[in-house]
């Protein structure tokens, strides 16, 4: 798979086999805060737990705005991924993303990575070692985290962040 900028202001990822397509499709479900640990990481208390009043107000008045921001990024990704389902299965294909959508992708990929690490309790050592862990689910979550990080890094590079 390569990532390249096309002249039309589009970034192309491809060719994508079935495995890569599935990893991309898993971005959205991975980014959900349906697990307490994921929710705690995506919506951390602004006082770090030292000011209950501040943290409670934050949850009431700021968290809804944050949820809207997070959901907006995921909706952009979902829209771009819809093109993957329009091609015959089993054939190699490319995913084309408008450059104007890259910030949403970077944000959504980050959200997925943070939620995966929190949900599966991946440690810093496991993230740095780039080795499989014993548990199958955690090992796959680690694979996703690294792949989404690769995409995030590539998109940041496309936007001029060296």
């Amino acid at each position, binding site marked *: 798979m390569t990532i390249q900028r096309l002249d039309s202001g589009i970034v192309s990822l491809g060719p994508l086999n079935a495995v890569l397509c599935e990893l991309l499709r898993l971005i959205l479900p991975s980014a959900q805060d349906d697990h307490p640990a994921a929710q705690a990481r995506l919506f*951390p208390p*602004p006082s*770090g737990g030292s000011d209950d009043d501040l943290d409670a107000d934050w949850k009431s008045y*700021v968290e809804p705005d*944050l949820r809207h921001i997070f959901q907006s990024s995921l909706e952009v990704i979902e829209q771009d991924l819809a093109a993957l389902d329009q091609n015959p299965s089993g054939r190699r294909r490319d995913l084309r993303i408008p450059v104007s959508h890259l910030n949403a992708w970077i944000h959504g990929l*980050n959200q997925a990575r*943070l939620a995966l690490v929190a949900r599966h309790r991946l440690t810093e050592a496991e993230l740095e070692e780039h080795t499989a862990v014993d548990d199958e689910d955690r090992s796959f979550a680690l694979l996703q985290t690294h792949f989404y990080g690769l995409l995030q890094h590539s998109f940041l590079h496309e936007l001029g962040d*060296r």
Partner: protein
Amino acid sequence: MAETLASPETETALDTPWNVVVHNDPVNLMTYVTKVFMRVFGYPRARAERHMLEVHRNGRSILWTGAREVAENYVQQLHGDLLLATLERTE
């Protein structure tokens, strides 16, 4: 008519500057964190990278100090960018 005056303790609390602190997270990419610091605070790349490295090496960095309301706004922006940020009263 008697005036309602703020107590000395309240006045002190209102005047006390607040720190915007960013904490380390092994997931966030260094390039991403630097980009966020540049955009949110308007810092040049060199300063943003200095803070990013401080977070990475020391576990935290004070990104900004000032009025509480502004500090809250910065923390909200940083949370919107999925960074671990808190605000704390200065010593």
